[in-house]
C-alpha cells in the first residue's frame, strides 16, 4: 500500500529537518508512487531511469517543498518536469538514431521517448499535432510551419497553444 498525502507531508517535514530515518521511508514511498505514476505514461524500459532521476531531483530540490501544502502535487510536478525533460533530451539528441533504433532496439530510451511523444500527439487533432511536431520538436519557425501546412501563421500559433494546453491536461490526468 502506498502512503497517503498526510503521511508524505509528515515524512517530508521531518526530512527537511534532517531526520534520515523518515527520509529513507519517504524516498521508498516516493519510489513506489512514482512507479505507479509513470507506469501508464512511458515504456517499461525507461521507467527505472526516470524514477531515479526524479528521486535525485526530489533530493536536490527538497527545499522547494512548502510544508504547509499538499505533498503529492509537488511530487507530481517534479516527476512531470523530469519526464518532459527526459523526453525532450532523448528526442532531440537521438533524433538521427531514431529510425534505425525503431528497427534495431524497440526498447531503447530514445525509441521510448519517441513512442511516448507520438502517443501523446495522437490524442490531439491532426492540425494541432502537426504544427507542434514541426515547431516544437523539429525546430522550424512559425513561418516555415505555416508554409508547410497551409495554415496561416496566426492559426499555427493558436493550434500550438491549444495543443500544448491539451497535452498538459493529458499529462496531468
Amino acid at each position, binding site marked *: 500500500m502506498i502512503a497517503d498525502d498526510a503521511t508524505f507531508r509528515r515524512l517530508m517535514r521531518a*526530512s*527537511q*529537518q*534532517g531526520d*534520515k530515518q523518515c*527520509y*529513507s521511508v519517504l*524516498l*521508498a514511498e516516493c*519510489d513506489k508512487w512514482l512507479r505507479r505514476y509513470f507506469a501508464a505514461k512511458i515504456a517499461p524500459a525507461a521507467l*527505472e*531511469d526516470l*524514477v*531515479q532521476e526524479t*528521486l*535525485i*531531483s526530489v*533530493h*536536490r*530540490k*527538497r*527545499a*522547494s*517543498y*512548502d*510544508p504547509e*501544502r*499538499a505533498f503529492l*502535487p*509537488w511530487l*507530481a*510536478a*517534479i516527476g*512531470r*518536469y523530469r519526464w518532459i525533460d527526459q523526453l525532450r533530451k532523448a528526442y532531440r539528441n537521438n533524433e538521427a538514431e531514431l529510425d534505425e533504433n525503431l528497427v534495431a532496439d524497440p526498447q531503447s530510451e530514445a525509441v521510448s521517448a519517441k513512442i511516448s511523444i507520438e502517443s501523446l500527439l495522437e490524442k490531439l487533432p491532426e492540425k494541432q499535432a502537426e504544427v507542434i511536431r514541426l515547431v516544437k520538436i523539429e525546430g522550424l519557425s512559425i513561418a516555415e510551419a505555416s508554409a508547410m501546412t497551409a495554415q496561416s501563421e496566426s492559426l499555427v500559433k493558436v493550434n500550438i497553444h491549444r495543443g500544448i494546453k491539451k497535452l*498538459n491536461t493529458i499529462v*496531468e490526468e
Partner: protein
Amino acid sequence: MTHNINNSSNSFSIDALVDDLQPVSPISLNRGFAIIAVMTLAALGTVYATIDFRGDVMAGAPAPMFFLRLGMLLLLGTATGIAALSMGRPAIATEKRQSGTIYWKWAVMAALLFPVSAFVTLLVDTELFMADFHTVSSVKCLVTSVTASLFIGGAMTLWMRRGAPTNLPLTGTLIGLSAGSFGAAAYSFHCPFNAVAYNGVWFPLAVGISTFIGWLIIPRLIRW
C-alpha cells in the same frame, strides 16, 4: 534497511541520498518579496542620488498621473512577482489555480490600459501625441528603467535558483515583467512627464524590454 535499485546501465541507491541528507529551510516567499523590496528601494535611492526626484514629488504635491503610473507599476510588479516567486515551489496546475497564483494576467490587462490610451490619443489628436512624445528624454527613461530592472531581476533569479520552477519560459517572463515594473516604478519618481502619450509608450516599452530579456535569458539560468 537498504534500498538499492539496479538496472543494466548503473547502480542507484536511495541510501546514498539518505546519507547525503542535510537539514534545509524551505524556500520562503516572504524572503523573496523582501529581496524585491530591498532591490527596488536601492534602485529608488540610486535614482534620487543620481538624477533626483521630480519637482512635484519633492514639493510633496505629486500630479495625479504620478500616482496612477506608480500605482499601476507597483500593482503589476507585485502581481507578477507573486506569480514568479510561486513558480519556485512546483505544483500541478490544479493546485496552482487553487492557490490563486494565476491571476497576474488581470494585472497585465489593467496595465495595458496605458498603451491603449496612448493609441487612442494618437488616433484622436496626432499633433498633440507627437508633441508629448519626448523621444530624447525617452532614452533616459528606457536606460534607467531597464538597468534598474536588471538588478532586481538578477536578485530574483538568484532566489529562484534554490527553487524548482517547472515552466522555465513562463518563470523567466514573469521575473522579467515583475523586475521591469519595479525598475520602472523606481524611475517614475524622476520622470517629469505626465502626458498619456509618454506614459503609454515609454514605460510599457521599458517593461516590455525587461520582460523580453527575462524570457530570453532567465530560463537558461534556472534550469535544473
